[in-house]
């Protein structure tokens, strides 16, 4: 049981059931998850630290998705094993719980097992995201140190060709291989204008192929997915309006747990769910620079995988204080209208800053949030 002291008590990670749980001090003391002096002023960190860190283990990728948020290429930056071990040590020193290996395509590396074992040895829980390209039965056996592997899968061949420029075979084969060999596998579905209409069949297919959960991800403007491409591929207003009902329908029918990413919170929450329930179930909205930090392949640090501003590595207390990361939680502490009066502000934290930055200014409200759109219409502001 890994634990970390917080002003309110502690975060603890349970392996069974798999969960992160925030507990108050009396319970933390009763469970003795930390030494008694863990809450002394000298030992409590000055600012929130990440629960989860995303570690880009390479910028290389053979697939070339037209909407890649990283602009990954076959010749991108590729850190050494020793560099990545040092980055894992830094992530451990900050007390993070989960490290999510990503890329580029992580499978281009041959040292993933070594790195995952190193993460485990430091008390971190390693997980991995892949396109599935390059996965073989032998390679599956090299990935058993990962607690979960997520495969990027937006839908069938037609959807995948539209969204990623490649058919669905590699992803579907990877799902089948991983689940058949007993590896816990999830699916990442990027919700775009093109994949939206297929979500029900995509989620059903993922469950049929052995996925143990499906995560829906908002399409975001970063990497190659900026400018006109982003505007053409993002969800339109009608789709956004239909999303809450669709997600609720999927929860009831998909047969597999459904997860939404932090940027989808403003699209999915509505008056049928209470802000208190959102907070209690860990829906915290924009996590950048607070519960989430990113270590890029070149070692630079950011608050979110899609955010352009970076701080120099390593990921440490100084990096967390850098404006590239600290500006995200600071924004949530001083939200602009209409977020400042929104009942969901605590669970949404102003929506996606990357989308706001792409539309003009990161300090503005998320321009695609339906409540922001309605507010601006009332005010006569441009939407």
């Amino acid at each position, binding site marked *: 049981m890994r*634990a970390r002291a917080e002003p309110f008590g502690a975060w603890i990670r349970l392996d069974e*059931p798999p969960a*992160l749980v925030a507990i108050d001090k009396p319970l933390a003391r009763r469970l003795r998850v930390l030494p008694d002096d863990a809450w002394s002023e000298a030992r409590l960190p000055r600012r929130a630290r990440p629960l989860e860190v*995303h570690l880009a283990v390479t910028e290389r990728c053979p697939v070339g998705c037209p909407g890649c948020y990283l602009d990954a290429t076959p010749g991108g930056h590729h850190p050494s094993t020793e560099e990545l071990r040092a980055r894992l040590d830094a992530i451990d020193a900050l007390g993070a719980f989960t490290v999510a290996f990503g890329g580029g395509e992580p499978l281009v590396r041959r040292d993933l097992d070594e790195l995952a074992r190193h993460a485990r040895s430091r*008390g971190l829980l390693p997980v991995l995201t892949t396109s599935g390209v390059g996965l073989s039965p032998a390679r599956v056996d090299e990935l058993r140190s990962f607690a979960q592997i997520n495969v990027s899968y937006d839908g069938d061949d037609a959807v995948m060709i539209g969204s990623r420029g490649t058919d669905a075979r590699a992803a579907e084969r990877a799902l089948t291989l991983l689940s058949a060999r007993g590896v816990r596998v999830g699916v*990442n579905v990027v919700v775009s204008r093109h994949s939206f209409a297929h979500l029900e069949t995509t989620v059903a297919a993922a469950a049929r192929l052995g996925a143990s959960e499906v995560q829906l991800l908002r399409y975001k403007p970063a990497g190659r997915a900026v400018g006109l491409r982003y505007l053409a591929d993002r969800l339109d207003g009608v789709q956004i309006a239909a999303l809450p009902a669709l997600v609720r329908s999927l929860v009831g029918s998909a047969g597999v747990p459904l997860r939404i990413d932090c940027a989808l919170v403003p699209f999915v929450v509505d008056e049928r769910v209470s802000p208190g329930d959102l*907070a*209690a179930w860990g829906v915290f909205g924009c996590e950048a620079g607070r519960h*989430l930090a990113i270590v890029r392949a070149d070692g630079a640090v950011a608050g979110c995988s899609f955010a352009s501003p970076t701080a120099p590595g390593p990921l440490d207390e100084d990096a967390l204080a850098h404006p590239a990361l600290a500006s995200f939680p600071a924004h949530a502490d001083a939200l602009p209208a209409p977020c400042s009066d929104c009942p969901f502000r605590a669970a949404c934290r102003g929506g996606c800053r990357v989308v706001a930055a792409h539309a003009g200014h990161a300090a503005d409200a998320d321009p695609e949030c339906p409540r922001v759109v309605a507010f601006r219409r009332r005010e006569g502001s441009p939407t």
Partner: protein
Amino acid sequence: MILRPGSDDGRLPAASRGSVDGAPEGVLAVRAGHGANCSSVGSVVDLLFAASVGGGALLVAIAAAFEERERTLVEAEGAAPPDGADGGGPASSDGEDPDAGAR
């Protein structure tokens, strides 16, 4: 037995109302699963929209895990003399450093 939304120093979101029945006392928030995505943090929404099923089962499992830990602590105290502050609890089953908890 209420799951209370936390509010302390900005580390947990302030929430004006709401609670989920069935959690052990002292539990402020729960994030289910491993969070396996490499680009964004995800939250399991089944627990929000179908909390009476999946959420209830998760809370029962968490309560059982806590009870098991307390039972282990009591048994350890009965088997050996106290030796001062706990260093973070027993090593987890996946071979983690026993001191990894004290962070």
